């Protein structure tokens, strides 16, 4: 007699392939997933509630801890939102803008390196992990030189940057982008022609363009479904309109398509960094808005105005007008948006973070249901989720 009962198993919250504390409750019919139910919230830290009780400057370190694989991007989204709220978007110095773009793209490479490393590792290709983390280590060292921290950089400020780039940074960066495309060739050499890799990801996790739009996928996950949309090009911020880059789209709709899109994005990021390095001219890195932007330390300790502004900003905090704004940026994982409601006080009245991974994870059940349990691992990898951002 055939035995046809389904079985329910827990995948996570402590499972190597769930990339953090994600719990999936899988209802299985043999090896086929009948129903997948994600349970999230294990890492909920109440970032939005915390933000309601801090000044606008004090929130920047909290944003590092959302998508901790791409901290500079979160910083960027947040400071752009606050600059819009204060109405100082057009006063950001050129050098600060160029550095922001450069570091945002460096962060994109860093985040995609973790994606390819973990995605391949989950599927069983261990070597790529070692190579990708070697390059990531280099980027972390750069982070340390810039900001003093390897992961939670906290480098961007409302109005510009916390400090200028360290000496020798440009050379390090040029050296890095000279060798990085070669490293990407290495990853492709290890994976693209690999039969096991192809079998594991081709035709897996399919989602059509309509379904992707409906469920709200963004970033490379959406572009892998043939939707040509990238906020860097379509709603440019930080001067992205001045850069020449291509938005890569693939209408394969499967994990293979998303794999190709992300690899091309890494190459494209190298090109943007090169253009940014060419554009980099000496100049100020902080807007001249003394009542809003924290003055540099030199000014604080040497001038009386600097000291007063510093004191006022730290003890009270700058106050924006009453209003509400939304700012979205193209994170490595998709659109991250900050919706800030101000009631004129020094803290946001309400700050809603639109996380990319949260929405992307929502697509997981429809991508795995009816497929093998092994495909769940591939789909989690291809959605490139970060639980810090999902749970906030």
């Amino acid at each position, binding site marked *: 007699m055939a035995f046809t009962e389904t079985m329910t198993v827990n995948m996570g919250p402590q499972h190597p392939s769930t990339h953090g504390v994600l719990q999936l409750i899988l209802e299985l019919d043999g090896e086929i997933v009948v129903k997948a139910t994600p349970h999230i919230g294990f890492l909920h830290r109440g970032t939005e509630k915390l933000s309601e*009780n801090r000044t606008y400057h004090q929130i920047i370190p909290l944003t590092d801890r959302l998508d901790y694989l791409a901290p500079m991007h979160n910083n960027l989204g947040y400071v752009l939102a606050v600059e819009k709220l204060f109405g100082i978007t057009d006063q950001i110095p050129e050098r600060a803008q160029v550095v922001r773009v450069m570091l945002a793209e460096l962060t994109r490479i860093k985040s995609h390196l973790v994606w390819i490393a973990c995605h391949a590792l989950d599927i069983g290709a261990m070597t790529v992990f070692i190579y990708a983390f070697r390059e990531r280590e280099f980027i972390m060292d750069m982070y340390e030189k810039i900001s003093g921290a390897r992961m939670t950089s906290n480098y961007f400020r409302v109005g510009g940057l916390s400090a200028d780039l360290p000496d020798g940074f440009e050379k390090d960066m040029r050296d890095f982008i000279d060798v990085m495309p070669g490293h990407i060739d290495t990853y492709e050499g290890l994976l693209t022609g690999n039969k096991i890799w192809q079998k594991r990801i081709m035709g897996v996790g399919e989602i059509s363009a309509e379904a992707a739009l409906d*469920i709200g996928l963004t970033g490379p996950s959406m572009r892998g479904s043939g939707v040509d949309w990238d906020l860097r090009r379509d709603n440019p911020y930080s001067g992205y309109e001045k850069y020449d880059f291509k938005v890569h789209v693939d209408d394969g709709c499967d994990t293979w398509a998303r794999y190709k899109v992300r690899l091309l994005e890494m190459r494209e990021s190298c090109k943007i960094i090169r253009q940014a390095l060419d554009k980099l001219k000496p100049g100020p890195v902080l807007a001249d808005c003394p009542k809003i932007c924290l003055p540099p330390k030199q000014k604080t300790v040497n001038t009386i105005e600097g000291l007063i502004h510093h004191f006022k900003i730290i003890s009270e905090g700058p106050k924006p007008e009453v209003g509400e*704004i*939304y700012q979205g940026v193209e994170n490595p994982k998709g659109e991250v948006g900050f919706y800030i409601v101000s009631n004129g006080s020094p803290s946001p009245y309400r700050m*809603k973070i639109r996380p990319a991974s949260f*929405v992307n994870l929502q697509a997981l059940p429809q991508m795995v249901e009816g497929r093998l349990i092994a495909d769940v691992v591939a789909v989690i990898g291809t959605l490139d989720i970060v639980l810090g951002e999902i749970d906030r």
Partner: protein
Amino acid sequence: MSEHAAVGKLKGKFSGSVLDVVEYRGETTITVKKEDIVAICTFMKKDLGYNFLADLCGVDYLGRAPRFMVVYNIYNVTTKDRLRIKVPVEESDAKVDTVSGVWGTANWHERECWDLMGISFNNHPDLRRILMPADWEGHPLRKDYPLQGPGREPYQGRHK
């Protein structure tokens, strides 16, 4: 800045529903009556091409009537245009019709709104808590929720 093109079309179709239109920092916010939210969202998607719901959240204006606002940040992928729709929600009747039938992505956003803000959504397919544990009491993002946790005096803030 001139009025957003979608505002005129929306007013033409739902003249009685549009309560307020605000233009701020180049962004348009339209406040509409909550009874018509599903019809308006369907119109925005089907006729005006706002095919992407970027974000949905609740805002608690404690002390004001109506107390809550539910905010829909929508986006048109073809014209790359953003728009914001808001609906006022009374505390005594903290319920809004779900728009998860219009944009599937609203499902989790509405669950989060219910979980953290305590606004429930009629006809929602799966209205459970999402970030907080299932047996949690209260809705943490409400302004009258004790900031330091349940059972403690509310935090007075550094700017009292």
